[in-house]
């Protein structure tokens, strides 16, 4: 079925906005132009609204702790072992979370669902696309796309009081190093067995994942707030030569040069929340302004439900309030997180050939009075 979206201000993100039309077929953007010629089966009248790509929330725990269901339904953090590399956020995701359709109303159509930050080595994440189905499989667009890690206060707060490691930042780093070293050893063991023509009979689920990190098949997604935690992460990245994304990166401004030199993408946020821990003391919206000026690859993230992804776009608006470039902030909700997640060939901008994951807004998303009136999953929203 060919659908023509007309009467909209098209914001492709990778090029300038213009008043125009978009033709979609089979979930793919076929044509983007001032006027699309040719026939169509269905027309969506945007009534002068703004057509944006669906926003991409690079760091979310949506579905792992559904709103209003209480402790029973919270599968964000497996706080029984500081290294739980083999758990998958996909196994704790539930579509019962009413914040899922609410996020779509706020323009967020794609999210990377990560495990929490209680563990120095957390679990595997997956990338989800908003769906109306009650099956998790209908949400999944990419499985096991990264391994969560965490530094700073959370891991030591979870284990230290139980007299378990880590009780300090030193131990958190040591645990991560040990995990990665075991990955290196594991690869060596496997190679040795192959050389000797023997069958490898010591498959270890956690070490398999360490191997994936060492071999750069997936990145380490490292939760860091304070400058020293960011530097620790970068140090480990260099030491083991692994791919990495820095999550939160709250004190980015203090280490912007090191981040640039390391070429590591970051996911900034949630800034629109309280400074509830000591490591958040210097949290500021100014970080977005600096990230824009430094022209690095960064995403604006919610950490839902710490900050609801339904209003992620307002956090980006607040960044503009503090001096960040508006276009760059729009990119931080779209093409930049798409690149960070490795899905930019299909998502993150309105370009021919990409997936038609789109929203029509009745005003600019950074204006809190506007909202999504139509999206490519729900159609018109009442």
């Amino acid at each position, binding site marked *: 079925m060919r659908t023509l979206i007309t009467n909209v201000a098209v914001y492709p993100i990778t090029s300038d906005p213009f008043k125009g039309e978009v033709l979609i077929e089979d979930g793919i953007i076929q044509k983007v132009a001032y006027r699309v010629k040719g026939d169509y089966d269905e027309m969506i009248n945007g009534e002068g609204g703004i057509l944006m790509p669906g926003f991409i929330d690079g760091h979310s725990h949506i579905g792992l702790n559904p709103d209003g*269901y*209480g*402790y*029973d*339904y919270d599968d964000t953090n497996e706080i029984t072992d500081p290294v739980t590399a083999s758990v998958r956020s996909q196994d704790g995701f539930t579509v019962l979370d009413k914040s899922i359709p609410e996020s779509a109303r706020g323009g967020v159509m794609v999210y990377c669902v990560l495990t929490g930050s209680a563990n120095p080595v957390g679990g595997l994440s997956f990338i989800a696309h908003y769906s109306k189905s009650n099956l998790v499989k209908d949400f999944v667009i990419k499985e096991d796309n990264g391994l969560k890690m965490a530094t700073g206060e959370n891991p030591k707060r979870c284990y230290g009081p139980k007299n378990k490691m880590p009780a300090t930042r030193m131990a958190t780093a040591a645990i991560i190093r040990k995990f990665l070293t075991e990955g290196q050893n594991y690869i060596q063991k496997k190679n040795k067995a192959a050389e000797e023509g023997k069958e490898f009979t010591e498959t270890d689920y956690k070490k398999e994942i360490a191997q994936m990190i060492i071999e750069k098949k997936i990145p380490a997604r490292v939760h860091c707030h304070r400058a020293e935690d960011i530097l620790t992460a970068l140090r480990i990245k260099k030491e083991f030569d692994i791919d990495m994304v820095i999550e939160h990166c709250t004190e980015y401004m203090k280490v912007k040069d090191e981040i640039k030199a390391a070429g590591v993408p970051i996911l900034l946020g949630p800034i629109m929340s309280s400074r509830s821990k000591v490591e958040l003391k210097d949290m500021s919206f100014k970080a977005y302004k600096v990230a824009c000026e430094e022209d690095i690859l960064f995403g604006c993230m919610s950490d839902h439900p710490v900050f609801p992804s339904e209003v992620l776009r307002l956090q980006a608006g607040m960044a503009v309030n503090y001096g960040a470039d508006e276009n760059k902030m729009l990119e931080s909700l779209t093409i930049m997180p798409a690149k960070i997640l490795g899905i930019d060939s299909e998502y993150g901008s309105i370009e021919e050939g990409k997936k038609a994951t789109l929203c029509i807004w009745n005003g600019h998303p950074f204006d809190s009075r506007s909202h999504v009136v139509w999206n490519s999953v729900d159609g018109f929203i009442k």
Partner: protein
Amino acid sequence: MKLLIKNGTVNPVTSPSFMGDVLIEDGKIIGLEQNIICEEAQVLDAAGMNIYPGIIEEHSHIGIHGEKTNQESDNDVNEWSAPVTPECHALEGIKPFDHGFLQALNAGVTTFNVYPGSANPIGGIGITLKNDPTLHFEDKIVLRNSGLKMAMGENPKKVHSSATKTIMTRMGTAQVIRKAFQDAINYRNKKEKEKDSRMEILLKVLDGELTAHVHAHKADDILTIIRIKEEFGFKMCLEHATESHLIADFLAKKDIKLAVGPMFTARYKIEVNNRSLCTPAILEKAGITDFCLITDHPVIPINNLPIEASIAVNNGLSEDLALRSITINPAINLGLDDRIGSLEIGKDGDVVICDRELLDPTHRVMYTIVNGKIVYDMEKEGLIL
């Protein structure tokens, strides 16, 4: 507002069944005979169906025991922080939109009583509600203080031997109860005192204004609370009375009502080892005909209330008493028999209409009517099972 139910088999319970009609006006039954003519009435064609008084549940935890939810957040059954909590009221623990209300509608239960739980020797006050979803919560209340819930046996000592370390044995439970009532008497005798609402509630029990409803399974627990009752002289109803069939002749001589059930649980604790499906029949044989059946929902689902009556019949209970035990008897137990429990002129228009006999467990409730309003229609809402 008039509702005319036509052409069904009418089973008033307190009078013989007949083929005919029931007319309800402004929430009260005004007609109960064949061929009623009423032009302005809304007509409900009950051809081929069986019409009964709304069923009454004397002992449930509907609304205070959260269902399909997180138990820590929504289970408000037992205030086990202390063994004596007469001031706790079920009213303040009920969640009005809980699933149990809907299940009760589908079961034809038009009035139900909600008690606090059985963790405490003195647990709190019960409340009786009409199951009318069109009313605001406060307007559903028919009996604000339906009784003082008390408990004997394994539950209080199991809970309080660890929670408050105040009761370790059945002896302890009995003394906690005696002391509470004695404290109330001492309070009454004091010349100068500050008003103590807890003591006021206990005095109401001693003065016969509020009935004690005592959870007791084993015969010895029943005998203990009867002993205490006779020492202090209050009114009492025994809840569960699981081993009542073992002392039926003794109980027949006492002026104590029995609320029997739930009959369908496994014999998972020692005090219910002698749980028997024959208990109602044995009680009837001993001349006890004023007992009611209970489900203790959600211990077993409330829609099992008429099924308990069916199984009791299968184990020797008369059909007549089986029907009474879920309608007029619980009404009398609660002191509400002037309003509910049977189809009689002047009583509330609470009716349940089934496509088979109520005692046939394969029946479907087609309509539930409360205060003359159709509040559940099976064709529209489907079965809520």
